[in-house]
């Protein structure tokens, strides 16, 4: 409308908006964006321009808000605005009318212009038609010539090809001369389709000649492939070319790999040699002092060679990877098989380390060229197994050592070597246990502290293995101890009583040694080993924490404590059993009711004392000396009680059949008021305690045997005499004299109770007989050692 460039005041702008909205049906379409936004901003009730304008409300608002003066002013404003609007409207109507008139004029003019156009168009069509017919004429006249030219061109190409084929043998020969095999192959493969099509007719000679040439080429290529002196690239190319010629490359590859595998066998042998060599400590030291020594060097060289070969083959035959991986894994497996074989023999950790190091260098070398084989991982797995075996075999050797040193006593005593071998056996087994364990630990520590990468990765595993190994080892040792005692037990029982004595003797000693060794393990060896393990084998963690540490010294201590006690009891039992047998014979053989008057102390007493002496001798070798003391009630493990009864003995002297009944009542009463004497107290690991326990058990047995018999007066007197004689020597060797006194008294009392006519020997006679016996023993003593 030509008013755009005039700056509009607010009022004019509003006016224009209103007008435009009037013309367009949608107010938002016509108005520009900023006006809508501004108008929308003002869409309140007092906005007179909004579409939702409510005049009543507006009026109300205005009346409420404004004073009269303002209302009047507003009225004037509004009137002026309305007037303005009216004039504007009028102007618009005029303008539109003008435009309408000019439009009608234009249409009239256009109508008159169009009338001459049609004839012009018809003229144009005619001209174009003539141009087309002329061009067709030219085309047909040139067609024949063009065909001829094309034919000629084809013939020329064919001729060139024929020429090429005729030239092929010569060309190939040239290529052979210049060793340009690649070109030769290219030519030949190019000519191949023609030979295939016409080889039997027109180009027979040509084909034969070129085939001959190709045979030479293939041979040469093959030679190239097999020759190690050629560069790898050249060999790879040769392989590729051969493949292009449809030559069976696979078989070649197989042959090459076979060759490689054969060379591996050589490699393997060498490892064996090395491990064999290092079995001999001399060789080993030589090797270590001189690392460039022959076997190691040759081995490394051959491995290097092998690696090179792998590298070459990988390039030559890109698809041979899996086979190569298999091969190299085979090498590692064989290596570790050798190691496992080797571990079965007794080796120390340095040997193992040495071998592992060799293997690891091999593995690294191979890994360089054949990374996909994951050889380090593979060998890690294998090494795990090997180390596991090593640990297992080490412990089994240790177990073997200990058992050897233990059973030595058995063997030696059988051979009649001196009595003191018991002590030496104890010392030897103690040493075997402690020193052996320490050696094993040192060995393992060497492995752990080695910085060989292979082993560094295995470190947690090895720690766990060692801990587990110790745990299992001590379990096995306990089992073995049991077997040593139990197994022999069965044997001695099978042999029966006829020949059993000698075996028993050695064997009882062994049990005692076992008991003491168990104590030693519990009190000395385990703490030391625990310390050592804590120092250098802590933090395995491969087992997972919920299992806790594999090595539980507390448990082992407990096992060996109970084992020690068990063996000690077993020893006591064995000893007592022998004496029991003696006593049983003594009491079941004679007819006590018809016993003759006692003339001397019975010889069973001698045997009894002899047994005790033998026991004492064994015990002295093994157990420590205890404090000599009189024990009363300080025992806690007691299982029995009885009451001492000195009263009874007094009664005994004046006892008679008439008064026996009242006497029994009296003794019962007396018992009630006596202090309990513990008979079966806890055994301790001292010479005295063990001997005392045996004596106590035997005296109790004696008492029980007496109770099963019925005596006449002489029988009773014999018992009285024997017991009286026993009193002094037995008391000398025990630690608890009161109990022994009590038990000896009990025997006499029981004998009197089981006697039809209990009249004891007169003390002088008793004394005389005992003195006679003592004199006799003294007389014999210098003779028997």
């Amino acid at each position: 409308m030509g008013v755009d460039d005039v700056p509009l005041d607010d009022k004019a702008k509003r006016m224009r908006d209103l007008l435009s909205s009037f013309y367009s049906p949608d107010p938002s379409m016509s108005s520009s964006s900023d006006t809508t936004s501004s108008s929308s901003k003002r869409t309140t009730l007092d906005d007179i321009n909004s579409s939702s304008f409510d005049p009543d409300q507006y009026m109300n608002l205005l009346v409420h808000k404004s004073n009269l003066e303002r209302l009047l002013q507003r009225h004037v404003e509004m009137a002026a605005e309305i007037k303005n609007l009216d004039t504007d409207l009028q102007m618009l109507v005029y303008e539109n009318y003008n435009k309408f008139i000019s439009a009608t004029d234009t249409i009239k003019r256009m109508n008159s212009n169009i009338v001459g156009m049609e004839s012009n168009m018809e003229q144009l069509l005619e001209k174009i038609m003539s141009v087309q017919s002329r061009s067709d004429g030219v085309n047909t006249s040139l067609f024949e010539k063009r065909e001829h030219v094309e034919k000629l061109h084809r013939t020329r190409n064919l001729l060139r090809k024929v020429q090429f084929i005729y030239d092929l043998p010569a060309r190939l020969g040239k290529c052979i001369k210049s060793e340009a095999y690649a070109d030769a192959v290219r030519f030949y493969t190019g000519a191949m389709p023609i030979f295939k099509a016409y080889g039997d007719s027109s180009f027979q000679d040509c084909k034969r000649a070129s085939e001959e040439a190709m045979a030479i080429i293939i041979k040469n290529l093959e030679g190239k492939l097999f020759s190690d002196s050629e560069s790898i690239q050249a060999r790879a190319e040769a392989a590729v070319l051969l493949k292009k010629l449809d030559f069976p490359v696979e078989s070649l590859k197989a042959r090459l790999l076979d060759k490689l595998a054969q060379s591996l066998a050589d490699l393997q042998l060498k490892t064996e040699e090395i491990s064999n060599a290092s079995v001999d400590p001399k060789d080993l030291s030589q090797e270590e002092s001189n690392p460039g020594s022959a076997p190691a060097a040759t081995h490394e060289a051959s491995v290097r060679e092998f690696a090179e070969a792998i590298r070459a083959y990988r390039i030559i035959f890109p698809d041979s990877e899996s086979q190569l991986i298999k091969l190299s894994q085979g090498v590692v497996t064989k290596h570790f098989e050798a190691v496992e074989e080797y571990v079965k023999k007794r080796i120390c950790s340095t040997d193992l380390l040495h071998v592992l190091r060799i293997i690891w260098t091999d593995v690294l070398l191979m890994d360089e060229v054949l990374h996909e084989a994951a050889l380090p991982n593979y060998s890690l797995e294998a090494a795990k197994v090997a180390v596991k075996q090593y640990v297992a075999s080490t412990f089994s050797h240790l177990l073997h050592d200990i058992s050897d040193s233990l059973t030595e006593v058995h063997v030696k005593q059988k051979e009649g070597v001196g009595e003191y071998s018991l002590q030496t056996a104890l010392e030897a087994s103690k040493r075997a246990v402690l020193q052996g364990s320490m050696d094993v630990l040192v060995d393992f520590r060497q492995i752990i502290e080695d910085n060989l990468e292979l082993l560094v990765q295995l470190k947690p595993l090895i720690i766990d293995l060692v801990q587990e190994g110790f745990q299992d080892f001590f379990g096995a040792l306990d089992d073995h101890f049991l077997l040593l005692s139990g197994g022999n037990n069965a044997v001695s029982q099978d042999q029966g009583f006829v020949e059993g004595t000698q075996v028993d003797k050695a064997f009882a000693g062994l049990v005692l040694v076992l008991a003491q060794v168990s104590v030693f393990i519990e009190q000395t060896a385990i703490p030391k080993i625990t310390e050592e393990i804590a120092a250098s084998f802590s933090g395995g963690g491969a087992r997972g924490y919920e299992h806790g540490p594999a090595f539980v010294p507390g448990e082992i201590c407990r096992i060996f404590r109970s084992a020690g006690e068990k063996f000690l009891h077993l020893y006591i039992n064995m000893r007592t059993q022998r004496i029991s047998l003696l006593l049983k014979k003594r009491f079941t053989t004679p007819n006590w009711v018809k016993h003759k008057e006692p003339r001397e102390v019975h010889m069973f007493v001698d045997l009894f004392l002899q047994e005790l002496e033998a026991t004492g001798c064994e015990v002295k070798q093994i157990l420590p000396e205890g404090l000599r003391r009189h024990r009363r009630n300080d025992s806690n493990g007691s299982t029995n009680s009885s009451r001492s009864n000195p009263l009874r003995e007094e009664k005994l002297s004046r006892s008679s059949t008439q008064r026996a009944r009242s006497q029994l009542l009296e003794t019962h009463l007396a018992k009630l008021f006596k202090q309990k004497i513990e008979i079966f107290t806890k055994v301790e690991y001292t010479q005295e305690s063990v001997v005392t326990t045996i004596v106590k058990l035997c005296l109790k047995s004696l008492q029980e045997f007496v109770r099963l018999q019925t005596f006449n007066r002489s029988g009773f007197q014999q018992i009285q005499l024997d017991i009286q004689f026993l009193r002094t020597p037995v008391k000398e060797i025990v630690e608890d004299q009161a109990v022994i006194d009590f038990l000896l008294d009990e025997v006499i009392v029981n004998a009197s109770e089981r006697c039809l006519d209990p009249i004891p020997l007169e003390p002088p006679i008793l004394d005389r007989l005992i003195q006679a016996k003592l004199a006799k023993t003294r007389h014999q003593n210098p003779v028997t050692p």
Partner: protein
Amino acid sequence: MQGASSGIGYGLKYQARCISDVKADTDHTSFLTGTLSLKEENEVHLIRLSSGGNELICEGLFSHPNEIWDLASCPFDQRIFSTVYSTGEAYGAAIWQIPELYGELNSPQLERITSLDAHVGKIKGVLWWPSGRNDKLISIDEETLFLWSLDCSKKVAQVQSQESAGMLHNLSGGAWDPHDMNAVAAISESTTQFWDLRTMKKTNSIERAHIRNIDYNPKKKHILVTAEDESGIHIWDLRKPKVPIQELPGHAHWTWAVKCNPEQDRLILSAGTDSTVNLWLASSSTSDEFTTESLLDSPTRRIDPLLSSYSDYEDSVYGIAWSSREPWIFASLSYDGRVVVETVKALLSKK
């Protein structure tokens, strides 16, 4: 494990070795016991546990001519029992009957039904078939095994068959298989022999020395328990007589007697010369898979089989007997003549 002194005591006048459950008495829990006194007049006591179970009542007191070494109550007649006695020089065995109306008599005499007087050697024991009425009776002396046929009404006993075990074997006791009327076990110095009573031939043996006492498991066939002097208690399966199926440590001194509970097949009672009575719970799997490994098995891996130890005795305990009427009650007899009746009900309920 020290047993509480919950036991009910009863005192005999003299020393005694043997006590027996009166199995045929189904109305009361009663025991028979006899004294062992060389010089005094010996007595047989019939003891009854009061209905409240807190008192032992002497139901009958009978004088017995000689000291009693073995006593066994007849399993089908509560008034009949057998004794083995010694005059000091010679041994004898007899079947006795408790007189009727004994409560009204002042000093009732035992009726001697018959004497088993075919023995020459030292008689060790008389066996009744434990499982019920049977007119057979077995007596064992040092060398010979006698099978008697007993007729109580006619008061006669006849030797049906006898067989010598051999001079050297020195029999010391035995047990009659409750599962098989024809099988009996006899213990000797070095073996336990098993006899078939029909043929009077040895069928089997366990080569084991020093066995002191033997008892068949009344609930499980083929299982029996032996007590040995030094080496404790062993449980055997007769089908595998080479190796015991379980070992129990026994006592601090000899294990003198062993008795299986009549109802609980795993419960074993033992008495020892260390003046204790021990109650054991044998391993539950006394079957085939439980074999030799139990010997090598470390003790830590097993629970303690010792249920309880009763040590409230003054002297060696030689006699023990389970009550068959109330199988949680047992009576024990120590050498000083004290009978103690204990109940193991509390222990059993714990298990």
